[in-house]
């Protein structure tokens, strides 16, 4: 037997280094193909006619005029759906095209293929739909009363009725409807195949889930629907549900031509789900030292017209309802309602964001009642090693060699204590007006401007919860190219911008000790990778790539690559979880927990109600840093989306109708809105996870919002129970005397 070749080590870009992302070069050169850049010879353009009404019966649809137009190749309605009429991520309830009822404004009613987009749009205008407009159900509280909900999840620990508290704070909180607003519009290209199937090139977060949902609607077998990932211009949850997929496939099959679909910005706002708006009533009782005695919470999340992922969002909201704090007596009720508002589903933070704003606001309210420092009240209640979540799940936070029975390690206190070394910035002398609220609007020279500082803590579950059989697949082939070992990595994991593909390559380099790693196209020719969501891809597909690399390494030890390539495919699973009990909410439901703390410093013009966030400092436990530069980018970006929710981002929905479906009217943070950020990244490893990592992409989205609002409260003394905080929330107490 020949002596096995000793394993070399990679010269660079192993796990832990700031490897440069492979797609950065084509992206800066303008030749990276996003889904909206795709084209094919002889292709048609698809377009969607949508219901203008939040609720209407469809009496008839007359497509004759549209079909007669020059350049129109197909006009299809619900009657033309070749297979199953509905799809859905969890529940199978969303019509491919509305049949007898339209249940939200923007629901697809008909689809058109034409030689160009203008013609397709004109054809949509030429379709006559006879609607019987009906009264929409838009009030989530009314939906709860009528029993119109996708899920009701109660949770009970101890008995708040028996608890006595020295101080009680009870408030109602409102979280507006936030949009993911990825810059890349929903787009894709469908290519009919000679065998009657269809090839789809789309920007999606989960290829295999798309395939499972698309094929039955087309009346095709999954093997006849092949998906390949197109370049993704951001996702943040907006690409979890189907958008253009079934429609463009139907049009391609009906016309036997390639069909491209691409939403414009207004259609994008109507064509994907949003973050659930929430109304939450919280009551916290604490003893005289500020230790929580009981929490009661009623959480109503509006799921809108169709189920999407509301079921799982409600599970997160209920299980994380009090945050990372110990409480003996808890009673939670969480609903995900069914209304005629826009459908809501996945957005970064996924049910954790809404409750985080409420419970952190409550912690501050208690601290104020008791005259305690906001950090101190959080320390006194912080969960620690061996604590139980309100679901009964025991917190196992490893990383400490010598457990101390008397003072068990608290991962939260560890993070909170680190702020002492990073003081909030002082007010600089002689500020330029550009640094003040209002900026170049020249609205103040400092008069009426008050500074405030606030903290927010977020607790987020990583990976899918509640017993879901979550897995990811990786295939790795190692072969000699020009005498050098090269690894070819094949997964179906979506690169949404987070840098996951770079992480894959770093893992392979580390495990195989080689320099050259090639990533194969992301498609359905390999097993599922699950979704790029729930902060799970480093854990799950990272875990699969690591496992496949280890398998290849083992084979390589006794195999000379000169004799041929080595290949291994591995599925990776995290430890199993359990469902939540439908009555008590108890259950070991989460895979991994991740903590993040923000401190915000704001200047508020209390006369005009203008807010400028001047500093955001973030301390986050990520278990293990895989790629510092990519990780920092995730924390910055997540913090910015939390800032958006705190002070500007809200879809205004009036009687079921969206009022601001544009970037003119729906504001996302600009470079002038984002403050400089300071990060302290902590590595308390989780030995159950690959390399000890913790999912990192979502937690900062939770904590930055309450930190900023706490800072505005500190500056203004106002209660501020609604996000986003609007100027009128800050000025409506300034009543002009007659």
């Amino acid at each position, binding site marked *: 037997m020949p002596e096995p070749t000793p394993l070399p080590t990679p010269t660079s870009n192993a796990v832990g280094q700031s490897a440069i992302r492979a797609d950065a070069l084509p992206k800066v050169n303008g030749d990276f193909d996003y889904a909206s*850049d795709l084209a094919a010879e002889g292709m048609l353009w698809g377009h969607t006619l949508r219901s203008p009404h939040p609720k209407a019966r469809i009496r008839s649809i007359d497509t004759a005029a549209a079909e007669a137009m020059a350049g129109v190749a197909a006009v299809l309605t619900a009657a033309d759906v070749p297979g199953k009429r509905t799809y859905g991520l969890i529940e199978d309830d969303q019509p491919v095209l509305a049949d007898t009822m339209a249940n939200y404004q923007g629901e697809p009613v008909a689809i058109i293929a034409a030689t160009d987009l203008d013609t397709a749009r004109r054809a949509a205008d030429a379709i006559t739909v006879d609607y019987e407009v009906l009264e929409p159900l838009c009030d989530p509280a009314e939906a709860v009363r009528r029993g119109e909900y996708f899920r009701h999840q109660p949770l009970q620990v101890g008995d708040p009725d028996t608890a006595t508290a020295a101080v009680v704070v009870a408030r109602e909180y409102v979280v507006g409807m936030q949009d993911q607003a990825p*810059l890349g*519009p929903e787009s894709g290209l469908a290519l009919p195949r000679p065998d009657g199937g269809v090839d789809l090139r789309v920007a999606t977060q989960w290829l295999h889930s798309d395939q499972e949902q698309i094929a039955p609607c087309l009346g095709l077998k999954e093997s006849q629907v092949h998906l390949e990932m197109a370049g993704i211009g951001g996702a943040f949850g907006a690409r979890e549900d189907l958008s253009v997929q079934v429609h463009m496939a139907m049009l391609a099959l009906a016309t036997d031509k390639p069909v491209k679909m691409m939403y414009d910005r207004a259609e994008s706002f109507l064509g994907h789900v949003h973050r659930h708006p929430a109304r939450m009533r919280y009551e916290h009782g604490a003893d005289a030292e500020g230790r929580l005695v009981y929490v009661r919470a009623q959480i109503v999340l509006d799921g809108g017209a169709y189920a999407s992922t509301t079921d799982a969002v409600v599970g997160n909201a209920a299980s994380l309802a009090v945050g990372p704090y110990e409480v003996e007596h808890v009673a939670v009720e969480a609903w995900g309602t069914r209304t005629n508002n826009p459908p809501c589903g996945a957005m970064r933070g996924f049910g954790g964001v809404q409750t985080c704003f409420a419970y952190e606001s409550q912690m501050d309210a208690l601290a104020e009642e008791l005259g305690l420092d906001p950090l101190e009240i959080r320390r006194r209640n912080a969960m620690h090693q061996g604590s139980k979540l309100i679901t009964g799940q025991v917190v196992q936070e490893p990383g400490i060699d010598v457990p101390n029975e008397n003072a068990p390690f608290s991962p939260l206190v560890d993070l909170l204590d680190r702020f002492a070394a990073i003081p909030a910035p002082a007010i600089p002398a002689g500020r330029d007006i550009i640094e003040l609220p209002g900026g170049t609007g020249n609205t103040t020279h400092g008069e009426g401007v008050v500074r405030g500082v606030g903290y927010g803590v977020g607790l987020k579950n990583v990976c899918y919860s509640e017993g879901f059989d979550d897995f990811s697949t990786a295939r790795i082939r190692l072969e000699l190219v020009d005498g050098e070992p090269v690894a070819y990595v094949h997964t179906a994991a979506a690169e949404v911008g987070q840098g996951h593909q770079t992480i894959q390559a770093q893992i392979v380099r580390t495990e195989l000790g080689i320099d050259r790693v090639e990533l194969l196209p992301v498609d359905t020719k390999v097993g599922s990778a699950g979704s790029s969501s729930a902060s799970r891809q480093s854990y799950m597909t990272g875990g699969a790539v690591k496992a496949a690399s280890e398998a290849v390494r083992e084979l390589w030890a006794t195999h000379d690559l000169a004799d041929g390539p080595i290949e291994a495919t591995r599925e990776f699973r995290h430890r199993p979880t359990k469902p939540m009990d439908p009555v008590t909410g108890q259950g070991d439901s989460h895979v991994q927990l991740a903590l993040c703390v923000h401190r915000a410093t704001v200047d508020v013009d209390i006369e005009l109600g203008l807010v400028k966030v001047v500093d955001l400092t973030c301390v986050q436990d990520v278990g293990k840093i895989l790629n510092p530069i990519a990780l*920092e*980018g995730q924390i910055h*970006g997540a913090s*910015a989306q939390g800032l958006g929710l705190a002070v500007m981002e809200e879809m205004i929905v009036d009687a079921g109708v969206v009022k601001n479906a544009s970037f003119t009217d729906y504001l996302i943070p600009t470079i002038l809105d984002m403050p400089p950020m300071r990060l302290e990244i902590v590595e308390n490893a989780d030995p159950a996870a690959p390399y000890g990592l913790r999912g990192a992409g979502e937690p900062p989205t939770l904590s930055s919002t309450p930190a900023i609002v706490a800072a505005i409260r500190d500056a203004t003394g106002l209660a501020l129970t609604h996000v986003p905080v609007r100027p009128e929330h800050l000025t409506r107490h300034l009543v002009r005397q007659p």
Partner: protein
Amino acid sequence: MELKLHIDGENVTAQIDRPGESLLQTLRDRLGRTGSKNACEQGECGSCTVLLDGDPVCACLVPTAGCEGRDVKTVVGAVPKPVRDAFVACGAVQCGFCTPGLLVSVADLLAREDDPSDPQIREALAGNLCRCTGYEKIIDAVHHAAEASR
């Protein structure tokens, strides 16, 4: 109508059939030059920023019919290599959809100001939305690009 344009150093003839067609539509849909991106087509996001006779504009707001004989520089022709390299090296690119427009705006800024301060950078890039990065790495990249270009 037929128009002659000078795009990224090449003489290009474009056939358009609608007077209201935007320069962005002409670049992307007529000429297959998809480097400039279409995120809002309302002049709010800056993803389609190009230099028109040297001035930064949102190509989605410029009618092609008014561009006869004019010079258009997109991300392909407007951005010096040190600027592109800095965006790559500093982690200023995530999904990258805003990147072409941002790069053109940065190129324009650095042509006017060889060592911009943070407030100058923020003001110059205020018309370019990015949803991924929180802008920190973009500011780092502009400083690096400025240093490398001096």
